[in-house]
């Protein structure tokens, strides 16, 4: 009886034993010389089960939104599980420092399921994986314009705590991030003059600022605010009669944001006094508001 991701999510009592049987069978295949070690077998199978629980695939019902794994075909889902087991098995074999050739030899050469040979991709090219290290992810965030805009937004949000803002600007200056610094100074200079006196307790202010930045950068509504702000600058239409810029909600969704997400972003922008919006279907910006958004969010 095959099972699907749907079965695991909604009918765990029926599907768990079948899942276990499948994972165990795959682990036995990939663990090679370790396949008689009950501890290693359990470790590999448990790893995948734990992962499925964490992902909300196993036994979560409707409490976790469906994700890309739920939308895989049954065959693709089996392949996913198969590779998860294989990866963990390889990891365990490496931990035991078993030579690769040892378990290669144990695989039957004429095995009908030759795709199961872990040698096929035992040395998986890590350079084929985007953001293979946290450093690469950091570099992406620092260099991609839209992601930098989110960073700018979060730094600018520190203006409510001028000492913390000053501490961060000082850090940017020290590390030579002159482009970013110039952008931020340009915007901030419009709203509040920047402190120029030396900062006391700089380290403390810096720590507080970092904490706020971490929170802001990982917050979904902040990101939606930035995305919607970018779109407001791109798609707003000038009304010559009232000198206003108008854009309707549907335009802002652009087929990749839901209306709910757009509203969350608009709400956040309104909360930050960047525009006046109270749930209307059409967003209206004054010329000054649009200029302010453009200064900060325009995709150059």
């Amino acid at each position: 009886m095959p099972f699907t991701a749907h079965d695991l999510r909604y009918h765990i009592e029926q599907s768990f034993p079948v899942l276990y049987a499948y994972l165990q069978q795959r682990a036995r295949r990939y663990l090679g010389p370790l396949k008689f070690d009950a501890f290693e077998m359990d470790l590999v199978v448990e790893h995948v089960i734990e992962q499925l629980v964490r992902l909300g695939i196993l036994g979560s019902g409707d409490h976790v939104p469906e994700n890309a794994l739920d939308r895989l075909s049954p065959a693709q889902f089996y392949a996913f599980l198969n590779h998860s087991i294989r990866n963990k098995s390889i990891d365990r074999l490496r931990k035991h420092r078993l030579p690769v050739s040892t378990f290669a030899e144990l695989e039957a050469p004429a095995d009908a399921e030759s795709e199961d040979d872990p040698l096929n991709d035992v040395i998986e090219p890590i350079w084929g994986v985007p953001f293979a290290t946290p450093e690469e992810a950091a570099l992406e965030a620092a260099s991609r314009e839209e992601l930098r805009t989110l960073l700018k937004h979060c730094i600018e949000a520190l203006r409510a705590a001028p000492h913390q803002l000053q501490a961060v600007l000082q850090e940017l200056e020290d590390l030579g991030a002159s482009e970013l610094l110039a952008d931020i100074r340009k915007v901030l200079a419009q709203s509040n003059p920047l402190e120029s006196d030396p900062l006391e307790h700089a380290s403390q202010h810096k720590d507080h600022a970092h904490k706020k930045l971490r929170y802001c950068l990982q917050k979904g509504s902040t990101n939606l605010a930035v995305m919607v702000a970018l779109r407001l600058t791109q798609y707003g239409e000038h009304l010559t009669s009232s000198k206003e810029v108008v854009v309707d909600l549907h335009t802002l969704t652009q087929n990749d944001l839901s209306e709910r997400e757009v509203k969350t972003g608009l709400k956040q922008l309104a909360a930050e006094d960047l525009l006046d919006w109270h749930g209307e279907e059409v967003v209206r910006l004054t010329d000054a508001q649009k200029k302010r958004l453009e200064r900060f969010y325009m995709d150059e």
Partner: protein
Amino acid sequence: MVAQFERGTHTGKGHSMNERGQIDPRNENLPLARWLQEVMAASAPPENENNEFHPYFYQQLPDFIMALLEQQPRATLHFAPLLYHLIGCTACHSAYLDLYSAMRAALQPDEVQLNIGQRTGSWEATPVRMVVQLCQSFIRQAEALYRQSRRDHTNESIQARFLLQQALRISARMTQSNMRTRALHDLVRIASLFDDFGEPMQQGPAVHSYSPVLAGGSHGRAMRRAETIMRPTANPSAQDAIYLQSNLLEGRIMQQGDTLELFLQDLDKTLHGHYLTISVPLGSLIEPIRWVGGNPRTIHSIAPVDEHGMLNTPLGRTELRLGNPEERNLLEATFLLLEVRTIA
């Protein structure tokens, strides 16, 4: 760290790259990236919580990875908070690598030829230790949700409650009560973290805290312990009661029709003549018990402790039967902790 940064092959705007495809360190993006990593790394868990992961971000990983695999142009923009999170969280980043590899393989056409037709499995053939681990996974997930709710000021109690119920239900399948105890290790502690599970009152310390005595095992110490409390005068069979123990004190829960009754004995003299409040912290986790007074945290005894130190009071009504092994296990799990207090 410099070397790791230099391995990057990013070609986005703002980068200048040398002939070997390395990032030009003179570019401001490089120090900025290092600084970002310093800022975000502070969110890494302390060493004693090195297994901590973040459900909110973890559960976005499959969609993010799919967007990357499909080369959706706005993938990083859409998942920017997740990307920033991955900079600082090694547990989630490690899961990202793991999942990316497996999902990439799953989408390759030649990978879908696995025989998926003949899969069999049964609970009888599934090792108990694996079921224990499954229950523990649910409980750990509930704990991770608690941490998330504290950090993000969100309310995750409905989902956590569901996970703990799953652990309870699955554990009820195990016949060995010592394994059930292992499966539900930490359940009471985690359930207590979520305040709204049991509407906790401002209660003083418990006078006695009872836990079930293992009775369902067929081997070893657990069964021997259970046998020692079977008193000849009471003469109940092991399946008709849940035996409780609090240090040297003993008690039991028995069933009369639909009613669950608590019997405590040898209570000390200071309690004689006093009414007691009984608290069952896991009582609100499963629905099928209608508790006396409506709140399993504050069940008032209908009579005081008598002059022999005995108390007999109803706890609630249920359709579950102690005579049915699986239902009995569920009831036993509900009484993993039973606290007794004097009424102020």
